[in-house]
Structure formats: structure tokens, C-alpha cells
């Protein structure tokens, strides 16, 4: 029982990271999928920083995270704090805690509400203190304020060229990831997709490493106009073209939604659900980071919508913001086009908002807010997927609210296959068996849809296969099978496409 007066408690304030330290200090970061992390590393290195990606979080990290921070934190934070602490502990053993504090800084995303995510500096701090790493420097980069020299020191200068590099890195890797997940389930030679993806990401790493250095405004103009990245993606497209696929395997498409970290990472934090679903016979429709950023843009613009008619400048800002959002979507579309328009198109944010409106208010933020509800309905009604797999971290506050609202959606659309999985990190069997139950239904639905499509087009699988064999281009991973809008599955859409090509009624 403390009744002795001590020095007042003060919040953690890291020692600034100075420009002079750039050559000797390595920036640690992580928390995305490996493709994005690799290219972001290239962006940082090209900008004169030493950068290192933290290893993918493991169950040991989860246990360490629970051990060193306050009880009750959400599952992603247990993983990320444990991941950082275990890495630093390992390095401390190698070079000593003092040297670790000198040689590394940790950079991660912060936020300004609504959920506690933005307050997790305290958990990191506690974890570092409890690990004897009080002097270690950790910086939270606010998503709404990139210029944070005052807090971080002049060593971390997140200027416009770096920001643009990071944005383009996310765009490109989102598109590659999307294409990869469309191809791998149908590859004729197992492992061929992984090999191409690995090569492609390394190619992009080199491309981003060679990105020309420019001043802020010339850099902006260059990024908007240059064919540099589209050329790189065309090369990726060329490499994918070498993969042979058999799309006549009916597989359910499973759309991944949920909390940002869990839907993005690929590894123990989400029970490696992407790969597990594929192994169970599904085609995964991954969650793109660029869609999340589009949502953040929409949230920002909604404030101007609200203030329209109240503040004079709100309408002008809203108009300007809409132009920026269009530009953003246009840039992604341009890069997508370089990949033969094969990756999924970004959903329209206003469409998602409209779909979610009866169930979840668009101004409620924190997590994915109404987008989570909107995406589920968009995928279901637009025949984009057979099933929604929502990854909800244990103890995630905003996510539980969206899931609760989904009860109303399911009441209205009982045929929507929805698998909300609470991810605790150490209850894999429970979560996967729950997912398996819905997936079984999705598989049946995909099979039924495939057979009905054959029936409707009066074709047999052998006839379709013979047609594809006669047109080898259709076996390429880069052959574009149009989405008919009537069926969701890749196999069913292939049948429809062949039927049209053969002049059959669809």
C-alpha cells in the first residue's frame, strides 16, 4: 500500500530520433502482410533510412504480450506488443539492452479515436518497462497528421515523397495480393503462384528502391503522371501469365472482412486463415488496405457533409475532398489496369454506406464502422462472394458493435453466409471449426451454382474443358474471365464466359 509520496507519474516521452542517427539506427515496423512490408522497407531505404521488418507475430508473442502489459488488452495488441518485446529481448541477449535502445526505434500507426487503439502507447510502454527496455524509443504515427517532427525528432521526416512512396507501395501490393489469391486456388502446378509472387515482390522491391528522389511537389506531379509503376506492374502481369490455371474447379469465394490488423496479416494472429481457407478448398477474396484508406477518406469527408449549411467553407472542402477521393480511386484503377484489370475493383464507399445505412450509422467510427456491414451486403447482393468471413479480435470494441448490427442484417437476409470469428490467438480449433461449418454450406452453394450454370447453358464440364483446351490463352492466370453479375464463383463465371463465346444462351 503506497502512502509515500514519490515523483509524479509522467507519460512516456521517447528521446527524439535525430537526423544524425539515421545511419546508425534501424527503424522497426510491421503489422501488415509481407508483400506490403517488403515494399515499404524499400521506400524507407530509398529515402535514406535503415529499416527492418519485424517477424510475423507468433503464439509465443501473444503470450509475451499478455504477460507484460495490462490485463484485458485486445488480441492484436497482445500480438504486436509481444512481437516487439520478444524481438527486442532476442536482440538484447545478443548485443545488450543499452545497445538495442541505441540501434533501434519502433514505428507504428497511432490514431485519435474512437477505439483504444490510439491509446496503446501505454501498453507498449508498460511492456517495454516490464522488459527492462525503458530507454527504447517507440513512435506512434498519427494517421491524420504526418508532420510530427515535434514529437519524433527530425530523424523521422515523413515528407511528401515518402508518404507518396508508402501509398504507391500499398496500392501495388494490394493488387498483387488480390491477383495472387485469385490464381493460386486454380494453379495447375502447385507452388507456381507462390514462386511468381515472390519474384514479383522482389521485382517491385527493386523498382521502389530505384524510385527517383525528388522535391515534394515535383514528386507529387511525378507520381501522378509517371508510367514507372504501371510498367513495373505490367512486368508482374507478364510473370503471372506464365502460370497455368484450371478454373473449372468450383470453389466458394470467401470474402475476408473484420478488424484491420486481423484481416491484413497472414500468420498466427489470425490462425493463418487465408491459407487455411485455401487448403479447405476456398478462393479467398482478401481485404485491401487501399479500401480501408478509401474509407478513412470518406469518414473525413462526412464531417464536411455534416457542416454543409453550417460553415461556409464546408461545401468547398467537401467538393475538393471528393475530387481527391476520385483521384485516389483513379490512381488505383490505373495500376489495376496495368495488371489487366484482373484484381477486384474497389467498392464505392457511398454504395457501401447506402447498403449499411438501415443497420449502422455512417458516422459511428472506430474499426471499420458501417463499412463492415456495407461490405458484407455488397459482396452478398452483388454476387462477389459466397461467404463472408469476419475476423473479430477478442475484446475489440468497435468490431463487436458491427457484428451486433449484423444480427439485423441476417434477420433480413437469412441466406447471407456470415462467419464472424472471434480471434483470441489461442483458440484456433474453436474458431476454425466454426468457420468450417459455414464454409461447408458455402462449398455446397458454389457446387450447386456451378452445376446450375452448366445446366442453364446446356454444357457439360467436358465440353467447357475442351473449349478451354482449344483456346490455351484461357488457361493463363492472366486471362480475364468477366464477372457476369449472376453468379459468384470463378468456375461458374468461366462456364458463362465459355457459353457466351460458344454462342450459347446464358
Amino acid at each position: 500500500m503506497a502512502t509515500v509520496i514519490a515523483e509524479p507519474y509522467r507519460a512516456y516521452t521517447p528521446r527524439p530520433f535525430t537526423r544524425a542517427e539515421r545511419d546508425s539506427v534501424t527503424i522497426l515496423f510491421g503489422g501488415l502482410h509481407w508483400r506490403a512490408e517488403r515494399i515499404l522497407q524499400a521506400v524507407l531505404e530509398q529515402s535514406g533510412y535503415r529499416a527492418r521488418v519485424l517477424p510475423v507475430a507468433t503464439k509465443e508473442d501473444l503470450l509475451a504480450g499478455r504477460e507484460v502489459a495490462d490485463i484485458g488488452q485486445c488480441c492484436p495488441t497482445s500480438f504486436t506488443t509481444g512481437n516487439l518485446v520478444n524481438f527486442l529481448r532476442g536482440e538484447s541477449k545478443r548485443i545488450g539492452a543499452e545497445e538495442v535502445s541505441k540501434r533501434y526505434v519502433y514505428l507504428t500507426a497511432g490514431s485519435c479515436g474512437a477505439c483504444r487503439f490510439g491509446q496503446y502507447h501505454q501498453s507498449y510502454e508498460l511492456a517495454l518497462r516490464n522488459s527492462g527496455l525503458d530507454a527504447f524509443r517507440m513512435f506512434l504515427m498519427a494517421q491524420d497528421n504526418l508532420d510530427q517532427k515535434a514529437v519524433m525528432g527530425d530523424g523521422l521526416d515523413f515528407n511528401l515523397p515518402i508518404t507518396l512512396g508508402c501509398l504507391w507501395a500499398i496500392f501495388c501490393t494490394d493488387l498483387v495480393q488480390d491477383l495472387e489469391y485469385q490464381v493460386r486456388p486454380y494453379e495447375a502446378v502447385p507452388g507456381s503462384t507462390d514462386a511468381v509472387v515472390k519474384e514479383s515482390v522482389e521485382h517491385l522491391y527493386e523498382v521502389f528502391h530505384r524510385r527517383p528522389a525528388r522535391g515534394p511537389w515535383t514528386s507529387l506531379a511525378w507520381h501522378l503522371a509517371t508510367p514507372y509503376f504501371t510498367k513495373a506492374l505490367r512486368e508482374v502481369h507478364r510473370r503471372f501469365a506464365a502460370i497455368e490455371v484450371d478454373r473449372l474447379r468450383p470453389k466458394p469465394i470467401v470474402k475476408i472482412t473484420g478488424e484491420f490488423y486481423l484481416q491484413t496479416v497472414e500468420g498466427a494472429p489470425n490462425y493463418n486463415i487465408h491459407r487455411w481457407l485455401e487448403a479447405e478448398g476456398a478462393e479467398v477474396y482478401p481485404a485491401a488496405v487501399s479500401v480501408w484508406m478509401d474509407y478513412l477518406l470518406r469518414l473525413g469527408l462526412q464531417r464536411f457533409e455534416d457542416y454543409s449549411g453550417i460553415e461556409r467553407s464546408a461545401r468547398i472542402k467537401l467538393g475538393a475532398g471528393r475530387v481527391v477521393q476520385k483521384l485516389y480511386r483513379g490512381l488505383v484503377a490505373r495500376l489495376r489496369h496495368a495488371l489487366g484489370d484482373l484484381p477486384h475493383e474497389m467498392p464505392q464507399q457511398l454504395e457501401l454506406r447506402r447498403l449499411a445505412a438501415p443497420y449502422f450509422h455512417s458516422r459511428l467510427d472506430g474499426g471499420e464502422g458501417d463499412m463492415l456491414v456495407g461490405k458484407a451486403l455488397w459482396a452478398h447482393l452483388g454476387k462477389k462472394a459466397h461467404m463472408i468471413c469476419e475476423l473479430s479480435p477478442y475484446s475489440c470494441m468497435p468490431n463487436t458493435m458491427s457484428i451486433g448490427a449484423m444480427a439485423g442484417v441476417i434477420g433480413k437476409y437469412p441466406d447471407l453466409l456470415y462467419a464472424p470469428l472471434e480471434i483470441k490467438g489461442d483458440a484456433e480449433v474453436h474458431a476454425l471449426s466454426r468457420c468450417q461449418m459455414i464454409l461447408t454450406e458455402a462449398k455446397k452453394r458454389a457446387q450447386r451454382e456451378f452445376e446450375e450454370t452448366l445446366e442453364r447453358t446446356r454444357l457439360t464440364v467436358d465440353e467447357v474443358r475442351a473449349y478451354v483446351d482449344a483456346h490455351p490463352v484461357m488457361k493463363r492466370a492472366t486471362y480475364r474471365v468477366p464477372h457476369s453479375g449472376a453468379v459468384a464463383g470463378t468456375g461458374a463465371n468461366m462456364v458463362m464466359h465459355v457459353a457466351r463465346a460458344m454462342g450459347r444462351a446464358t
Partner: protein
Amino acid sequence: MPSWFGRTRSAEPAPSRSKLRVGIPRVLNVWSTHQFWVGLFGALGVDPRNLVFSADTSEEQGRQFGKGRGTVDCCYPVKCATGHYGELIFGQREKLDVLFSPMIYTLPSFLSGHVARTLTCPRVMAAPENIKAGFLKEREVFADQGIHYATPFVSLDEPKLVPKQLFEGLREAVPGLTMEETARAVDAAYRALRDFNDRLRKKSREVLEWCAREERACLLVLARPYHMDPGIGHEIEVDLQAYGYPILWAQYFPIDDDLMQWAFGPDLAAGAIRSPFDIRDVWPSSYSSNTNEILWGAKVAARVPWIACVVRMSSYECGMDQPTYTPVQQIVERSGTLFFSFQDLDSTKPAGSVKIRVETITHYLERYAADIVARKKATMPPGCPLLSAGASAAPSETSPRSDCAGKAGARTTPERAR
């Protein structure tokens, strides 16, 4: 009778304003904003007798009215709202016309302008959407019962925006509502809330002045506003008060300039903070309103000598409280103030353990309170406004009775037991 000749109850014409019966679930941040809503509906012409708040939370309420309508497992303060909705829909002798459950996005906190933002918890703000789903998943309960469900999204810390938000959220529920009228009603509502808060802060100051004058210790409760609900906070502070210790809540702590300058003067002089309501020295990510107030309350408790003990309450699975456990405890304990925490509060009152904890707290207070007060006084600058000539001399009817207040060192008996 063929149903197509009948009218559904929801199609009945809305009653006039004075007869309009409006039900408000007594949940979550309604605990700190109820006077705003009372003021608003009063200004809109709704008869105060027709403004119906649901009862305090109880397990019985949940069993009787909320069973089977839960949609998600989360903290009890949010979960229990289902029972409140059910009580207002099914448990009224006279039918309600409107069930009003605002989605409060920001709060009009006294820390506003000194902190980053004043957002509410993401679960709390979204609770009306979540609870609603439980009443819609099988059938349209509100329409079946002829009740209009009004759930405006409202940013109470942005007064310019509020009339627009409430007009949009209420125009279908309140007959003949206009934007101008809503704006006037919103002004009246803010006044009502301000007056109420001022009254409570004045009373808290009287208690503090009495403690200062009489050299008595008091306790400060750090909790979310809805822990005032006997079904959520389980009246732990009432059990403590029964031992004669005055209880203050951080939300209604006096914020008079003289007291603030005295309490935070050294920190201001040292440049650690920019104003007495600035909490950047302990909590840089100050965007969550109730969290901010808890952190600020911990700072106040560390500085005001007569607060000898802090009682922290937190509900099971409260995500917003979780990152604050260590800082709050550290802020309080480093000042030498006693700190006791009741975490993981849920639906059932753990009466036995609460009793033991309360006895432990009072034991420590008896033993250490005088010393704590003396040592804290020694660290503070002279000229405490609570002891100045201007401080009220005689305790008002709301001040603690001198014969039962917990004087440090003297064994006190719970009032209830007398």
C-alpha cells in the same frame, strides 16, 4: 376481420406534443447528459410527466425484458441496454409513442478545448444500433408496438452541429418540428445541463471546504458516469459512505478557477501542462471523453490533500479503461493517496467481496488518512482556497454531517447499521 382493412399501430397519427410520450433508456452516457434531454424535450413542449426514463439496471429487468434479444457479448453497461429497451417497449402501463436513444458521439466535457477530443467509447456510441438489431432480427418490434424509434447521432461537444443532427433525428418523431425551434430547444438543453452540473460542482465544493475546515478525509470515485447506476456500480460508494466518508465523483468535482490554479499551479509553472485541465503530462492520447475525465480526476486526487483515497470502478471487458489501469493507479499512488480498484464489475453484485473490500478500505483510512492528508498538505503551496475566508462556513444541507463523517483515526460505524 381481414387485416388489410385495419391500420397498423405505427400508422396511427402522432399525438400532439403535450401528449407525446417519450421513453429514454437510462443507460450509458444518458447518466451524464440526462438534464440535456429533459431540457430539450421540455423546450419542445413535451409534458415532463410524459418523459419516461427506464428504471435503474437490474438483473431482473434483463431477464424479464431483454432475454433472447442480445446480439453480442460485450461489457455489461452496453449489454444491459436490451433490458431497458424492453422495459420501455413492453413494461409500460401507458404505451410510449417514441423510444428515444441518442447515439452520443462526443460529450460536452469540462475538459473540452484542453484535450484532443471528447469522443465517447465506440461501443457506447454504437450501442443503440446494436441493441436495435436485437429487436429487429425476428420481427419489427418497434413498428408492431406502434413505437417510433428515434436514435439521432449527436455530437454534443459541437454545439453548432447539434440542432441539425437533432432536427434530422427527431422530425419524424415530434409533430410539426422546425429547425428554428430545434435550435432554440438545444440552447435551452445546454443551459439545463450546465445549470445542473454547476449545482453539483457547487455541492462538491461545499463538501471539500467542509473536509478542509474539519480536517476530514474524503474519497473520490473514478468511474464512468454509468457506474452511478446502482445496477452497474453496485452502490459500492454508498457502502463506503455509510462509514461516514464523504464521497465525490470526478465528473462533478469543483472546477473553480481559484481551486484549479492552486491545485495545478506548480505544474503550470513548471510548464508540464498548459492549463489545469490539460492532461498531456500523463495521457497524450486524450481523445476519449470519459477516459480523459478519469485521468484528470486521478491528477486532482493526487493534488487535493483531503482526498485520502481513490476508488476506481471498472466494468468487465471495458476496453477503454484497460489501457488506463496502470497510469491511473500510478498517478494516485505516487502522491501517497490510497488507491483501491473494483475491476471487472458485471451484472451480479459480488456482495461478499465488496463488503470485505469496503472494510479493508475503511481500515486503511482509519489508519492512514490523517497522515496522508498531512503529508499531501505539506507538498502543496500555501493559500488553499478551500480554507480561505470566502469558503462557506456552515455546512449546507448537502454537506456531510460532522457527527458521522470519517475523521481520520476515529473508528466509524456504517450509518446503515445504526
